[in-house]
């Protein structure tokens, strides 16, 4: 293997097991013993509620120009003030929560689909399949992610969907590596040997035999990739490649407000703080998940 490093960093995830044998309730109880998880849970809950009930919570349409006097500082009527087109920042932030969660979800979903497929195939079949798929993964890992994302967005055109796609396409190799190394440890198990003797199809073996056993590391990695995806999407907005106006994606709000940092600091600090808290919450949740699922840390 050429680039072994990522495997080793994430190899701890290979030990993450026992998700399937614990009931959901005991699992949740164990998870929320962690203070970090409690904190994260509250923030994520607020975020999800805001996203679901956005039309009920937001006093204005998020793109209603001249809802108030442009650049009004936060006050009782406009909790987060208004932006330079007079749009209500509170409403924009609430609707933005939807988009932010959506971005994270889609990116992670695409990463999981590609990464798990590649990782499963490589780990399960081994040999040449493994060699070729993993060399390809190496190429993707070594290729500077931002240049790849720039190229994809430039080719497909700008916009949120394409930006999401670009981020996902440049970051699935992590999943492929984690899944592959987990699969390698599962492949030699007795269950698998038994399956082969009984003549089960490859598809069946992968779906039923392997996948459930590598589910836990996938879940942990997904919860850690979610916040990373939100940040990368914001970074693409910084280059003008992400969400299109008037979409109130938080990264775009942050970028658009860059020159107001002195004259209307709330315009940049509110989305900045919101992104920070969201990403923090998901990172903390991911860490707590990993600790909960890691058997070495559990029995003490």
């Amino acid at each position, binding site marked *: 293997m050429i680039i072994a490093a990522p495997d080793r960093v994430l190899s701890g995830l290979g030990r993450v097991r026992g998700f399937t044998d614990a009931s959901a309730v005991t699992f949740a109880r164990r998870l929320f013993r962690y203070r970090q998880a409690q904190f994260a849970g509250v923030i994520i809950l607020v975020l999800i509620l805001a996203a679901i009930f956005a039309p009920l919570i937001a006093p204005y349409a998020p793109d209603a120009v001249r809802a108030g006097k442009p650049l009004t500082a936060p006050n009782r009527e406009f909790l987060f003030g208004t932006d330079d087109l007079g749009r209500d920042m509170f409403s924009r932030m609430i609707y933005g929560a939807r988009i932010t969660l959506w971005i994270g979800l889609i990116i992670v979903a695409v990463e999981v689909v590609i990464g798990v497929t590649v990782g499963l195939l490589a780990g399960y079949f081994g040999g040449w399949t493994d060699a070729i798929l993993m060399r390809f993964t190496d190429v993707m890992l070594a290729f500077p992610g931002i240049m790849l994302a720039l190229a994809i967005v430039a080719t497909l055109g*700008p916009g949120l969907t394409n930006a999401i796609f670009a981020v996902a396409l440049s970051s699935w190799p992590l999943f492929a590596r984690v899944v592959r190394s987990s699969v390698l440890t599962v492949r030699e198990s007795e269950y698998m040997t038994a399956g082969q003797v009984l003549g089960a199809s490859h598809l069946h073996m992968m779906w039923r035999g392997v996948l459930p056993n590598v589910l836990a590391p996938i879940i942990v990695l997904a919860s850690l990739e979610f916040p990373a995806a939100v940040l990368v999407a914001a970074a693409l907005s910084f280059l003008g490649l992400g969400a299109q106006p*008037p979409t109130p994606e938080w990264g775009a709000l942050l970028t658009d407000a860059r020159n107001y940092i002195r004259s209307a600091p709330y315009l940049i600090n509110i989305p900045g703080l919101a992104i920070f808290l969201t990403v923090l919450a998901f990172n903390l949740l991911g860490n707590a998940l990993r600790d909960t699922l890691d058997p070495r840390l559990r029995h003490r």
Partner: protein
Amino acid sequence: MKTQESRSRRLSVILALAVLALTWAPFTPASAQDTPVSGGTFRTAISEEPDQLDPANTNQLLASNIMNNIYDRLVYIGADGLPQPWLAESWTISDDNLTITFVIREGVTFHDGTVLDAAAVKFNFDRILDPATAAPNKAFLGSLASVAAPDAVTVVFTFASPYAPFFTNLLSFGIVSPTAVESSGDTFGRNPVGSGPFMFGSWDTGSRITLVRNPDYVNYREDDLNKGPAYVDEIVYNVISEASTQSAAFEAGELDMINAPREDVARLSETEGISIVSLETSSNINFIEFAANEPFNNEAFRKAVSYAIDRESIAEIAYLGNATPNQCPIPIANAAYDAELCAQYGSTYDLDLARQALADGGFVDSDGDGIVEFNGENVSVTLWSYAPYPVQSKTIQLVQADLNQIGLAVEVQTVEFGAMQPMLESGEIGFDYMRWTYSDQSILSALFKSPGWTGQTSDPELDRLIEASDTTVDPEARVEASRQVMRYILEHAIIVPVVSDWVQSAVRDNVRDYHWDALNTERLVDVWIAS
């Protein structure tokens, strides 16, 4: 009349600076404040590194801002829009408008000590004309066929056909030292040698470019205050791509001048020790342009858009008041600019007239869904601009709101600069908000002469009018010819002009006499730093 205005505006800027200086430094003797003193470093920022500093090899605005300090030119354009003597003492134009003979000033030397004479001038223009140079600015020489230097002070330019933009376009051609070009070869662009008020100092790749004062400089320009060597010892251009970082560096006192971010102009102008210098007669024009496909090639559609543009509101909200509404398809600084004519043939914000124009053109909402149909289909279009510039994105959002009101289903979209050109040429971009900076009326031919800069224009009548404007050498007759072009453009709503945004700099109060000339170029030879 308009040029008068620009001169008085510039003067008033300088006066305002002087007044501010008096009010904010009451304990320093006034005399010390009024008399320029030599010394100090003028520190400023540029948003990216120029590609090079050789007029034959770059067409970047950014590069020309720096080159203006290193190279002098044959003529400059005065506040009246007419060419004035600089390195050329005088000139004569032949009756057939095909030859221009310059008399070159004697006694001027380049920074390397060599003489700037007729032969040097000929060398410069031969170099641009040489296809091997592949000079990106070659188009600015138009129909120039050859250059001759019969003696040390005479240069004869011969044209294949009359070419009116020539004098203004000389703006792009600072005179370089032939000796230095020959000795530096390909690296001349990074070791430039001219005859201007500042000499090239150093180029720290990626970070900064430093120019140093030319101690032997004589300034022949009438419009500058300083006739001798520049006052400041050095100009330092720091490369800082992020505007908010430029602001931070300016506020921390590390820079003496930055291009003022529009969003921060109001606050900065109230900050003690800082002033905003504005040039409201700017040489840029922001406009909406259209592709040659349905419904954009439909005059009624374009007319409707033109009535739905609320220029005042765009200038006020999107540009935060730092732009002038412009109904002319030409920058305000241009000699042919004529607000009255453009108000007459252009359109003023009126949504009822916009709806009327749509109805007249057969855009009717017959199914009552609030969106007009054309040929039985809802008209759903996308208004584009380029990213990542907040002001562009804000403007198209404001326009979107108005267009939606007249029954068009409009989406807005911004696209990265690099990807825009092919989309414009393929017609994929139906209409978009665009910005051009240009000093001469020939902006009209650059933009609209078939096939147009986007490849989407073809109008024989318009071509004929533009041709007339480009070949009329007499300045006043030319202004008249250009106005015919503008009138035609407005009558047919070929584009919809929106605003000309102001050129604005934030300067520290100890920086004096910072100003621009009539073509919006900085005159740093006049700048001095008060103690």
